């Protein structure tokens, strides 16, 4: 042992800390890496409009601290959106933290050091008016299709893909989308001969879990494929309803 006499462990760790809405910091390295990987984040500059105009971090949306409380509707409906707040320094950003965290954004952090720290580290800033509207489009999971794309194929409005229904036989007996190939997820690897290799395969099940598994199998086998990461119900005649997952 190293001889430390007063060691304690916060065993519940980060999940408990986050859940309790306690403050969180992120650092410049993280924001930089988000930029490099084009990972979407909501970046909020809480200084006044003039300061933001003089210099702001690329991608920042200007929401001055005194306007923040009334800007709730500008924020994304998706509460999983990571929000990074920065002010002139750490403390200025901290003041806005509890407001945004209070709206339910669990992944809200304050940029440690604020823009002062960012600039001190020699990181680039932009001049001119910062954006005033928040645009947040989450990066889809690899292989996940948009509901719109899936619908176009399911309704035969687009011809280069086929639907693969990987629900169980009991479920598909109740109805399948017109033109769909039905193979239960666990049989996909043994029944590849039934799946055309020259088409893009759009996989669905009922919740996305089995569809993703089948998608992974197809991908390993060299297929071009995507899957519906949403809830879908198919009625007897083949009509279907898709609802987004929470």
């Amino acid at each position, binding site marked *: 042992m190293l001889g430390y006499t007063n060691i304690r462990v916060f065993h519940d760790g980060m999940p408990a800390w986050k859940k309790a809405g306690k403050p*969180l910091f992120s650092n410049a390295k993280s924001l930089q890496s988000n930029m490099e990987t084009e990972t979407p984040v909501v970046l909020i500059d809480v200084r006044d409009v003039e300061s933001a105009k003089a210099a702001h971090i690329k991608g920042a949306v200007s929401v001055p601290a005194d306007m923040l409380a009334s800007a709730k509707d500008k924020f994304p409906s998706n509460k999983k959106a990571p929000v990074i707040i920065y002010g002139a320094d750490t403390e200025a950003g901290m003041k806005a933290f509890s407001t945004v965290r209070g709206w339910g954004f669990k992944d809200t952090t304050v940029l440690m050091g604020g823009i002062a720290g960012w600039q001190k580290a020699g990181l680039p800033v932009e001049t001119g008016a910062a954006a005033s509207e928040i645009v947040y489009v989450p990066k889809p999971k690899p292989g996940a299709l948009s509901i719109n794309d899936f619908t176009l194929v399911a309704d035969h409005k687009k011809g280069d893909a086929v639907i693969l229904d990987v629900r169980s036989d009991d479920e598909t007996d109740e109805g399948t989308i017109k033109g769909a190939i039905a193979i239960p997820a*666990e049989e996909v690897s043994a029944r590849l001969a039934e799946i055309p290799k020259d088409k893009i395969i759009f996989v669905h099940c009922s919740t996305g879990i089995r569809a993703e598994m089948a998608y992974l199998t197809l991908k390993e086998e060299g297929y071009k494929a995507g899957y519906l990461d949403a809830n879908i119900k198919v009625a007897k005649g083949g009509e279907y309803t898709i609802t987004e997952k929470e």
Partner: protein
Amino acid sequence: MIYRKIAQAALGMAALSFVLVPGTIMAKEAKPKVLKPCLQCHKDNGPNDIRGKLGSVSMKSETIKVETGGAPWLITFDDNTVVNGAEALNKIDDGHEILVAYREEGGAMIADRVDVKPPAQLDPAMLITIDELAPLVEQGPEKGKFTLVDARPGKVYIEGFIPGAISIYDAQFEENLDKLPKNKDDLLVFYCGGPT
């Protein structure tokens, strides 16, 4: 990962914008059987052991997805699969560390046994609660005379950490002893991603 836009022809519909991973590049890539951080404690893995994080479970297709750092593993199970440490496979939290001992049958992987990693046993006297920690964090390490160590990987730390925490990834602990406080009687608090 490289994404590729698929040619679009949407019969006058709005342009399609989905992206797909080209199958030929991803096909049959080698994937690790053991998730790297697990190797710290578990060096003796059998040839038919998969050790990683549970990704998802489908009770309907009797398949689990296990993440080990590369393309995920899909392993089927049945009534004979022994589950240790959980009531059933769908009662295990997503992301929990598991060991799957499998056999191969006709090209398919079938789980003989799934062990769920038990929570670490700690002396209750060593624990600090959130209600004890929060006021300290508010004071800051200097005033509160403590050192707070985030033991998660550095990549996770930078995305969001408790104010005042320093980063020493558990797996690189020995190389970072110089970051610990000089005074060995000062309070030293560790945290990570929760009980696993």
